[in-house]
């Protein structure tokens, strides 16, 4: 029942994306099944940190989507770096309350998540990784949704 709910909702989103294109700077790369989608995002303003770069996002949807958030990470490819940001670890894991159980709301969708990430990058001016990035990247075995983030910084 619930899984059907997720696939129907994702079907609707896909249909909507195909009918009426995504906002500028967001592009659907692949959505071959209703479990994992790949999207590319760009930062369109003149923030020097992210100029002329494209980033690859990977969405993974559970059977409880959209009641529970999807798992969203940046993926590193030869031409797709991980954006520099104090809330994005160098392995692509994103610390954003919107993607956690608390901050998520079922009215969010793939498009709105992408736009949030776009604006999160746009608003950043610090060219740095989160504190403890090396340790975290080395030691972390957890899936993003199982990590307990501590939202310590409300300025970025």
């Amino acid at each position, binding site marked *: 029942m619930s899984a059907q709910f997720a696939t129907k*909702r994702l079907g*609707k989103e896909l249909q909507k994306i195909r009918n009426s294109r995504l906002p500028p700077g967001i592009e659907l790369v692949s959505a071959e099944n209703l479990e994992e989608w790949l999207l590319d995002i760009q930062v369109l303003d003149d923030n020097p940190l992210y100029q002329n770069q494209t980033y690859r996002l990977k969405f993974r949807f559970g059977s409880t989507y959209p*009641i529970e958030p999807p798992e969203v990470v940046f993926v590193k490819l030869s031409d797709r770096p991980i954006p520099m940001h104090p809330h994005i670890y160098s392995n692509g894991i994103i610390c954003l309350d*919107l993607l956690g159980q608390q901050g998520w*709301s*079922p009215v969010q969708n793939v498009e709105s998540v992408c736009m949030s990430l776009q*604006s999160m990058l746009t608003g950043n001016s610090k060219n740095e990784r989160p504190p403890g990035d090396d340790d975290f990247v080395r030691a972390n075995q957890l899936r993003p949704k199982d990590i307990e983030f501590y*939202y310590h910084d409300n300025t970025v």
Partner: protein
Amino acid sequence: MPPPNTPEEGVTAPGTRPASPTLPRPSSPHLSSVIAYASRADSAVLELDYQAIEYIGHVDETLLCPVCRTPFHSPITTPCGHTFCAGCINRALEMQPSCPIDRQPINKTRDYHRLPLIVKDQLDRLKVKCPNNGCDHECLREHLEGHYERRCQFTLVRCPDTNCTKRVARRDSLPENGCMHRDICCQYCNEVMMVAELDAHYDHGCTGAVAVCSECDATVVRHRLEKHKSNDCPEAEARCKWQSAGCRVAKKRRIVREHERDGCLFEAIGRLLDERSEDRKIIDDLTGRLTTLEMRNRRREVRRERRNETAARPTNGSVSLDIVDLGLSEDGTLFAGSATDNGAWASPEDYMLAQFERMETQMDDLRKKMMEMDAHQSLNLLQHTARANEQLAELASKVGVLNMHTTWLMNMQRQNYAQQRSGSVAGPPNNGMPATSDDGAARAASENAVRRQEGNRRNSDGRGENPPRL
């Protein structure tokens, strides 16, 4: 609560703000009650899945539930003014007890609002396609449930075989078809499949016994050739689908199809006619239901009247009086008489119906009285016989006592006789004298012998073992 780390609320969801407080405030009670009724009345049909329905034409963004992104199904509005499908908001509240849009706390049990009908009407008027496979019926959403539950021949219903738990399309669910899920072997290609799949197999999968259509060179299963020619073949003669509306076009099917695609002049009329016939069907359906309800209502009223009548009659009216009463009202003049009595009977049928009801209640009365009398009689019988039974038992016990007395006396006599005999053999009888030890032993021996004898006899009689004691 963790502070939002990056984006502002408004920035996060610019693409998703379908329900603003001023917009839809649709009402749920109607729809939800309809659904509840439907699922109760006809559980043989799976509940209609509103999220699987295909809508025809453009549906306004504001009518879409922000959670499932389909037009609202039994919508409810939160205190903060946002509207969701009932199912969606309940599911979301299980995760977080707040509104998914503005995160205001929501108390699930009492915070929902009652909504104006205007949005319900908007939703009801959306055009939809029947979600059943094979059915191309289109109608307004408010009519879909009726179509799906009662009329659509493709709705899955229970298999006619009560032992089978699978479901089958309504049109195949005929008792004479039996279970459609038993295996069958295709007579053309020997493939084994379920009976229910055979039809689709002939159309798409069967490789055996193909025939070539003389018109278009297509290959089809031989016994489907007719169907192919009359329904599908692009080269066969066909008529415009709006011919019932007056279109006279009759050419090769592909030309006719083009004609239909380009817009037949009669299309508008045809659609109107279709809608009308659909409406007619609905009206007929409703009229039928209304009539049955009216009938039932009238019968109930008649029964109530009858009950009042019997209640008003003096309670000591006996059975025979009732019968006489019935007999009188049954004779020749009764129709006219009764008609004046009870005001107006709409028709003789109604009168007969009422009379029937009357007689039925009378029958019930009689039956009840019969039972009463039966009970009374058996009670009487019991009382009378109880006395006799008591006396009989008393007599029996007296006879028993007498019997014991006799036995005891006989024993005494026998003992005395034995004593006398042993006395005459072993020595003089010692009447009342203290016995010597020799004497005592002898007597005890003889007594034992007598006792043993007696014991044997008693055993054979099936009575107690010990000699009687008084």
